């Protein structure tokens, strides 16, 4: 009986950084974080990663196998870094959907892409990754870059991505991960919990959001666990590539 109650509680709660919160509250709390950082998101990304996030994303694009005329879903696409490139590569015959659960991020992304002259083949959709509002077997490529760790039910989201992919399509998950080098790990921890929130305070006047960023990275499944989750959802040929000593990993899986 007690076990059943514990299970019921566990099913109703999840983590938000190092805190345990009700599942229903996590969406709202994550939304608050991204509403807060949306306007400074690009500046902070460059500042925090010293611009390296551009190389990580570039590697993801190289692994995407995208071609003219294809359909792409850029989930948690935020300010549209990946969407911009996909839009140019798939061309007029192709189609890119920039989806994000957070409307502030979506608005910033849409304004930025329009300023870059990207229009015509890009659509903006506010969507929850756990229940994607797209038909089955629709996209050639689904990407989620630095977004999966914010999703409440990751397994459900991965299953949803599997559903909307065409047979032969691929999923790319670019996400912070676990570094296995002890020295780098110590340095990274110091940077994440001391320097990062201070930088957030100075640049975006918001240290809490960047503390959440550091905590949520630590709570995210490691490389092998995420690989297992993708396989569990039905993906085949799942492999991952560690970058910058495992600070970030790119997982790639196919739907056959």
């Amino acid at each position: 009986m007690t076990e059943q109650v514990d299970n019921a509680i566990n099913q109703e709660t999840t983590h938000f950084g190092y805190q345990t919160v009700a599942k229903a509250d996590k969406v709202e709390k994550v939304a608050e974080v991204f509403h807060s950082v949306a306007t400074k998101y690009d500046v902070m990304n460059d500042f925090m990663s010293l611009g390296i996030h551009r190389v990580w994303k570039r590697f993801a694009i190289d692994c995407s196998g995208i071609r003219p005329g294809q359909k792409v879903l850029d989930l948690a696409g935020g300010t549209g870094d990946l969407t911009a490139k996909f839009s140019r590569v798939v061309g007029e015959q192709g189609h890119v959907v920039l989806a994000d659960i957070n409307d502030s991020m979506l608005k910033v992304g849409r304004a930025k892409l329009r300023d870059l002259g990207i229009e015509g083949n890009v659509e903006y959709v506010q969507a929850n990754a756990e229940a994607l509002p797209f038909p089955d077997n629709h996209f050639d490529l689904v990407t989620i870059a630095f977004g999966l760790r914010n999703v409440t039910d990751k397994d459900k989201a991965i299953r949803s991505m599997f559903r909307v992919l065409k047979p032969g399509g691929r999923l790319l998950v670019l996400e912070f991960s676990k570094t296995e080098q002890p020295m780098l790990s110590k340095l990274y921890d110091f940077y994440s919990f001391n320097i990062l929130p201070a930088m957030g305070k100075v640049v975006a006047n918001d240290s809490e959001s960047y503390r959440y960023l550091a905590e949520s990275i630590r709570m995210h499944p490691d490389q092998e666990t995420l690989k297992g989750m993708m396989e569990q959802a039905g993906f085949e040929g799942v492999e991952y590539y560690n970058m910058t000593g495992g600070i970030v990993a790119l997982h790639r899986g196919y739907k056959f």
Partner: protein
Amino acid sequence: MPLLNLISAGVETGINSLQQWDRQGQARRKKLAGKVFSIELKELPKPFYFVISTQQVDVLGEYEGTPDVRVKLSVTALDELKDSAKTTSLIKQDKLEVEGDIQLLQQFAQLLTEMDIDWEDELSRYLGDVLAHKLCYGLGQARRVAGRQLCRIQRNVAEVITEEYRLAPSPLEVAFFCDQVTQLEQHSEQVFARLDKLLGRVVK
């Protein structure tokens, strides 16, 4: 971190920065929009793929589609590509391997090499009109003087080598030698023709 991603990022940033200043850039990109070029430099292990759109040139390290033009060449041949007359000779010299439409390739080379950039105008945004004009004028003068000096030095060095130290023949001597070789070649052909005739008689 993959080194080739860093290289492609650098190349892409460099090209697009220059393309932004090129007054003809957008019109040229529009002509090539949607085309993909695979460029493999012999000095690098993998090709780079250049995807052209009206907005910019994207450089990818991997591309699973079929590029419109594939090129394998050496860095030194890159500048010679814009001259259509040289393309055939580059191919014959094995400096250039091309699969696809050569005209497209030449348009792409023009896009990258024949940029119409008004440096004075660009600099004036940062330095002001007067300083930018003076700087560009000064640099232009310096370039002309340097060009003249270089020509003079080349001439002097050539004279020292051919006339004073006699390490190499002068152009007239080379021309005379070539004439002699041509004459010798003609004489040899005549001798061979006579020998063929004589052999023909002996066999009969």
